[in-house]
């Protein structure tokens, strides 16, 4: 599923990386625990999180995450958006809750990080 379609499905707005919406996403992980993200094989995946900090972006970069979705309408400080842009990491924000955002993406056929549904 293209990131552009995910943005529409989640009624989301793009905060950084609008030039990378053609990115193809198949796997998703949802966590507020940075350690979980670092411990899983997240390469090219979508990370859904309620944490909108600099560490979210750095952790995602290190883990190889493809794009970040901030849930519950989180609007991060400008430095977080700038870091995501510098890292070439698309950052989008959805007003939906974590549960509903995950539900919509699951219904579209996206899988968990290990490929399970």
């Amino acid at each position, binding site marked *: 599923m293209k990131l552009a379609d995910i943005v529409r499905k989640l009624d989301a707005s793009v905060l950084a990386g609008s030039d990378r919406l053609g990115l193809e996403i198949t796997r998703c992980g949802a966590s507020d625990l940075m350690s979980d993200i*670092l411990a899983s094989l997240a390469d090219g995946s979508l990370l859904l999180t309620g944490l909108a900090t600099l560490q979210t972006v750095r952790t995602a970069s*290190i883990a190889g995450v493809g794009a970040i979705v901030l849930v519950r309408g989180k609007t991060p400080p400008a430095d977080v958006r700038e870091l995501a842009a510098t890292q070439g990491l698309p950052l989008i924000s959805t007003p939906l809750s974590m549960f509903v955002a995950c539900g919509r993406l699951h219904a579209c056929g996206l899988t968990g990080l290990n490929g399970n549904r």
Partner: protein
Amino acid sequence: MPGLTKTFFIKARDFGHAGEASIRVQQILKSMHLDPALTRRIAVCSYEGEMNVVMHGADGQLVMTMGPDSLELDIRDGGPGIPDIELAMRPGWSTASDDQREMGFGAGMGLPNMKKNADGITIECPPGRGTRVRMRFHLKPEGGGP
């Protein structure tokens, strides 16, 4: 491949810059076109180690040394050290503060994750002399790895 040594300083409690050294390590390895899976393992270990210094240690440094066959990350700080290494290696055990947990850290997975991703890990913390974590990675496929 010629030898390469890079040193980065790590400031304790500075969450605004925490992780920048590891992002640099990752950029250097990517620019050398190292195997992506290996690059990821090294970057994760570097970042976990760097965050440990930021959260639990005192100012320290990260030294990356690359030889023809292996790469070493040597992370040192002048903090209080680890009173019980066996306990710290146990998944889920953490001394992180509430603030640090709110930032998504402190799940007690740092050292176990470093052990899982490195080809070798040595932790030294002589009383009152800080902590030194050294991790080694084989750069050649025949060297093995997880």
